[in-house]
């Protein structure tokens, strides 16, 4: 296994001479987990095997960072053109108390009118915690004085690119905000590793 990873890293590096990746190359297998989707159905991470995934942690009440990231992701989807069909987006809630499947459905349909590409995931707080840990995503409730607003959630805002085998390949920081270049990375990776089909 170690040998394989070594060869793999070598492969990425040799390719990067020809193509300069915009994101930060990464290599980590994600263990299977299950959460609840926007239709209230239990869904497993492994159900998405065979697709390239863009994973983002956020919450529907989020005023600045999440809308910025989701708009960027929806621009990436547009930029992907013919490659769009190999990609799905997972929006994983870090505010499961307020993010019911219904709230998630409204939220994701705003960024994906077709309903085909973006999946919203929520679940029990402890399940979300475990998932976030795998991605090394952080989040923390921040109380707001006004009772009706209740709280905001500080959270990490990376976009993770996961390959069809469930391995994180690339990470995008909030300042990697050029959708064209993210889409170009995805196209290059699909060319390198196949469509997953």
């Amino acid at each position, binding site marked *: 296994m170690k040998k394989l990873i070594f060869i793999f890293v070598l492969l990425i590096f040799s390719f990067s001479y020809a193509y300069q990746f915009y994101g930060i190359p990464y290599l980590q297998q994600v263990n299977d987990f299950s959460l609840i989707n926007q239709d209230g159905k239990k869904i497993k991470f492994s159900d998405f095997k065979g697709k390239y995934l863009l994973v983002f942690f956020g919450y529907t*009440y989020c005023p600045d960072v999440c809308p910025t990231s989701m708009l960027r992701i929806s621009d990436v989807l547009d930029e992907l053109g013919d490659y769009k069909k190999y990609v799905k987006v997972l929006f994983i809630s870090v505010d499961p108390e307020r993010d019911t499947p219904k709230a998630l459905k409204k939220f994701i349909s705003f960024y994906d009118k077709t309903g085909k590409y973006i999946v919203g995931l929520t679940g029990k707080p402890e399940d979300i915690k475990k998932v976030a840990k795998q991605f090394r995503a952080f989040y923390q409730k921040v109380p707001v004085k006004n009772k009706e607003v209740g709280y905001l959630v500080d959270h990490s805002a990376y976009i993770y690119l996961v390959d069809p085998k469930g391995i994180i390949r690339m990470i995008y920081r909030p300042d990697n905000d050029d959708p064209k270049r993210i889409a170009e990375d995805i196209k290059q990776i699909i060319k390198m590793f196949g469509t997953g089909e």
Partner: protein
Amino acid sequence: MKKFIIFLLTGFIFLAYGNEIIIKDPWIRAVPPSSKNTALFMTIVNKSDKQDTLISVKTDIAKIVMIHKTVEENGIMKMKHVDSLSIPPHSEVKLKPGGLHIMIMGLKRPIKEGEEVKINLFFKNSGNIEILAPVLRR
């Protein structure tokens, strides 16, 4: 005497317009109807010789409006409350996504893309400036 009054009046007009604050390209981010929070962005231009300060912001569409700054700390995006915002003379301050913004919390109703929202900005010197900010998806 008449001339003197006119002179005085123009003086007052100059005083009133002396603290010239201009709000450029204001916009409110369109958010999903389930969302209770959004943000206002704009560029505040101070054309006067004196520093001015944005002290507070009000709108009818939300319960709370605050001046915020999004900052990144070790990959975590945090929003910090800013008490007031100084606009130095002959300069501009940009409020944009991922940085300074006017945080609009507890929306009383969903906002629609394309609608214009009335916002009141209160400045220390220039007083109340009323603007219409379009709701945009960007």
